[in-house]
């Protein structure tokens, strides 16, 4: 039987080769055929999920809710010590010094990353800003979010914190971080679908040993992970409950 794996489309482009290396390594360890399919955007990936085409997924926390609660996926692991945090930034010349300085009808540049957009909107709430009151300029990448700010086409931009931190020094010098989330409990998770349930324990054992195995560490380095933290199903159920409180 051939299984299908995919990765949340919000991973950095320079990790593409790393995910193929991880996939190859996992196939050898499991002695199973796993096809890696990378989707260009969340909508394409969501369609594949709805069509039950996915067996293994490194999922955005927003999608984890659907996968676990509606599609019967179970939690395998999450990269150790990492969480999805968001940054709201402005142009370096902006007069806005705090969220409360923003107008209710402000303009926002963002990608289609659902959890970052959710966290970003929550951080705007203290200024009475809601999804109904903002004008969203959706772009394909975080570089383009930065460009929208530098060209002063929008008031604020939403970034995955890691993406913001990895912007070049020249770009960052033209932006100013307004606020950064410190939620800690929201993160991407590796989930197994119903057809992979039999191999779940074996996959978790393989992942648990990766961080202490020299070859495993090399594979992980390509996707900038140190090791995997093995998850209990309740860990992910808790995160999904938390996400549920944040959705109106």
């Amino acid at each position: 039987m051939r299984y299908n794996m995919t990765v949340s489309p919000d991973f950095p482009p320079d990790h593409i080769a790393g995910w193929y290396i991880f996939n190859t390594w996992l196939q050898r360890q499991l002695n199973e055929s796993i096809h890696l399919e990378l989707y260009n955007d969340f909508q394409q990936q969501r369609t594949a999920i709805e069509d039950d085409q996915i067996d293994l997924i490194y999922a955005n926390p927003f999608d984890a809710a659907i996968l676990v609660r509606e599609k019967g996926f179970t939690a395998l692991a999450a990269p150790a010590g990492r969480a999805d945090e968001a940054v709201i930034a402005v142009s370096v010349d902006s007069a806005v010094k705090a969220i409360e300085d923003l107008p209710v009808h402000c303009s926002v540049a963002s990608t289609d990353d659902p959890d970052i957009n959710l966290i970003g909107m929550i951080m705007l709430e203290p200024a009475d800003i809601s999804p109904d009151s903002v004008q969203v300029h959706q772009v394909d990448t975080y570089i383009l979010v930065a460009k929208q700010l530098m060209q002063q086409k929008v008031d604020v931009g939403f970034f995955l914190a890691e993406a913001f931190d990895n912007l070049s020094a020249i770009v960052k010098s033209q932006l100013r971080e307004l606020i950064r989330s410190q939620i800690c409990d929201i993160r991407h998770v590796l989930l197994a679908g119903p057809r992979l349930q039999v191999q779940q324990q074996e996959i978790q054992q393989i992942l648990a040993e990766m961080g202490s195995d020299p070859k495993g560490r090399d594979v992980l380095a390509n996707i900038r992970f140190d090791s995997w933290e093995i998850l209990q199903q309740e860990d992910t159920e808790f995160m999904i409950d938390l996400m549920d409180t944040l959705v109106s």
Partner: protein
Amino acid sequence: MRDMHEAEVVSPCEKVRLTYQDGTERDVLFNDQEVPFPDGKLIVSRTDLKGVITHCNQSFIDMSGYGEEELIGEPHHILRHPDMPSAAFGDLWQTVESGRKWHGYVKNLRKDGRYYWVYATVIPNIRDGKVVGYTSVRRKPSRSRVDECVNLYAEMKQAKG
């Protein structure tokens, strides 16, 4: 749940005896000093079906002023401020016990007698079709909505007499 003590509270403060939904009572001490909700953070806790705290995150500990060991095993109403009308909590419990999500603006009481406002959401934790507990997440509220609630809650308490 023990009474609050003056030695642990920022002075000057007032003292009232609160009676909670479960019939227990406690002396609470409070003052008029607000602690602002920290930007970018969420306060997260979980309780069992009776509202007893089973999990709290670091932001909960930092903002409440209690240590984790003082919170776990205590009822969530350890944070109840005397300015909050009991009807607000009645609505909360009625909503979540029927399996629905509750939202509201809440003034919470810290261990040191100061207070902080939150926008709270509480949901039932459903596992295998059964409610096994509740998750509460608090985030930074809109100041204009807080100002509305200050007046509304005062009216609700006054109306109750």
